[in-house]
């Protein structure tokens, strides 16, 4: 069953173009030049209940704008969207009680008070039954290991601890849809891993629908089966992670371990030599010629070990973003 339905959704901003210099600044008082920035250019998307979908794209691609539209923070220029049957930008309370938005760069908790006070306020705002509230809070704080920090002012928490508290605040009312905008930004690898694990477990146990934007491929790899790639305000890919490799990964990486540490000359005739640290060699080879290259290498050289891998996902996606940018 579709929980999120988007058709032709577009959002354009009028952006003031300020020229350099004092004279231009004074001139700007009387006459200004504006440019229309099309952040989202008519996207169509359908997300079923229980899906964990990643939004990928370079900075300024339109990912966060899409989340803002779906959470009702901003209104679109054109197009329609329905989340659980609600039009987000009407901001009906019935809708706002059923979703949550977590932004890694924004703090929604009361800065000077312990997180527990903010949680109490959420209990009232979202009309959560007291027993249900206690149960959910204890469960979430237990899962994230922050039960002992509930009485500490938020300003005195580390970034990772604060992010965990933000997540708890967002999940106290058991939302059906969760929008996560770079929830692990700025966190160390341990904190990232803990939050990934928590989100994975939480989403699987509750079967909620999650839309995630993140620049960390590890987040995406750990959590999402479906990936939507947005660039220049348009969806350019919607499918599985493996599909990205098939569609956009034009080559493979062959790793060789040579006998006696001997590195033969002219290996670059097989493909691009990525690294040569005897006895280990890495070659980048077009996908179509991998069997031929392997056959030739094994026939002509003394190889102890060989492996063929896809290039790292970050590399494929970075190459894709570069290509999109170049093509405009």
């Amino acid at each position: 069953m579709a929980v999120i339905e988007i058709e032709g959704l577009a959002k354009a901003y009028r952006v003031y173009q300020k020229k350099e210099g004092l004279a231009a600044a004074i001139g700007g008082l009387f006459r200004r030049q504006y440019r229309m920035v099309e952040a989202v250019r008519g996207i169509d998307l359908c997300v079923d209940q229980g899906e964990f979908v990643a939004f990928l794209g370079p900075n300024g691609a339109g990912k966060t704008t899409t989340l803002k539209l779906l959470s009702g923070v901003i209104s679109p220029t054109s197009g329609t969207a329905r989340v659980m049957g609600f039009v987000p930008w009407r901001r009906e309370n019935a809708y706002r009680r059923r979703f949550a938005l977590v932004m890694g760069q924004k703090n929604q908790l009361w800065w000077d008070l312990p997180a527990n006070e903010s949680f109490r306020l959420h209990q009232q705002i979202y009309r959560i039954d007291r027993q249900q509230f206690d149960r959910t809070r204890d469960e979430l704080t237990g899962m994230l290991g922050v039960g002992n920090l509930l009485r500490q002012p938020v300003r005195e928490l580390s970034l990772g601890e604060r992010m965990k508290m933000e997540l708890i605040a967002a999940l106290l009312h058991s939302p059906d849809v969760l929008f996560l905008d770079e929830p692990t930004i700025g966190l160390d690898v341990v904190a990232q891993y803990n939050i990934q694990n928590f989100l994975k477990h939480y989403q699987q146990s509750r079967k909620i629908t999650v839309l995630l934007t993140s620049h960390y491929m590890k987040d995406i790899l750990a959590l999402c089966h479906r990936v939507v790639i947005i660039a220049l305000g348009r969806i350019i890919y919607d499918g599985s992670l493996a599909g990205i490799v098939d569609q956009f990964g034009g080559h493979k990486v062959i790793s060789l371990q040579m006998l006696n540490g001997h590195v033969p000359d002219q290996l670059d005739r097989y493909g691009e030599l990525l690294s040569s640290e005897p006895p280990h060699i890495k070659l980048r080879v077009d996908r179509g010629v991998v069997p031929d290259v392997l056959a030739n290498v094994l026939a002509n050289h003394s190889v102890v070990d060989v492996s063929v891998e896809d290039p790292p996902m970050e590399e494929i996606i970075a190459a894709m973003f570069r290509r999109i940018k170049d093509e405009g």
Partner: protein
Amino acid sequence: MFPRLATSWVIFRISLEERLVYRGDFALGAVMRFLPIVTQIFLWAAVFAALKAQGAPQRPEIVGYTYDNIIAYYLLVMITRMFSSMPGLASGIARDIRDGTIKKYLVQPIDMVGFLLLYRVAHKLVYYAVAGAPFALLYYLCRDYFGGWPDAATMTAFIASLFMSFLLGFFLEATLGMTGFWLLEVNSLLFVYMLLSFFFSGHMFPIDMLPGAWGTVVKLSPLPYLAYFPAAVFLGKVSDQELHWALWLQLAWLLFFIAASRAVFRFGTRRYSGYGG
């Protein structure tokens, strides 16, 4: 109805707790409120002394205000300003718009203006509770400047105007802050407002001192209802006839700014671009 009350209570309670976090700043803020009145007393003592030196009668008056009246007026304006001034409200709203913090009010099932009103009530109440004793002492020491307590009807009108001055101050400044949806930076607008308010709310001098048409025009504006009007009512400077229409006018301005704040929020959020990531 009951859940809404319970929510309001929790917002109020948490706002109270938050206000009590920074004790030093809070205590200093409370004490500093008393300083301006001291300078006003010295200033007007000098003005009236100069009048006497120029051969004025034993109890000279300026537009119907004796020296005692003037000091009583400033003491009362201090009270009305405690109700109607909203430090940081407009600039805080504009800052939230500019840096995107306002999003939390848009995604949660909560009314931002109502939330901020409760927050402000809590802050004011804490301030009154702490400043109550020193204020009581000050007024006791200055009791001779007052000509006694006003009658019940005047007292009722004073309390009503004081209550409305709080709400008027809140909704007026909230509306100004929400112009940030269009202007983004509202500091200059707030500076102009503070300047006008300083002169025309009666903070600097009683509005009666403004000559002719100027006085009439200013009295029709919302500003005198933030300081001058409640103080003048208490001192009996407002005639019965004027009191009635002035109270109605204060109510009309209050309703206008309630409606204006709602409209500005509604239209502002429609054009909001969700700044700050």
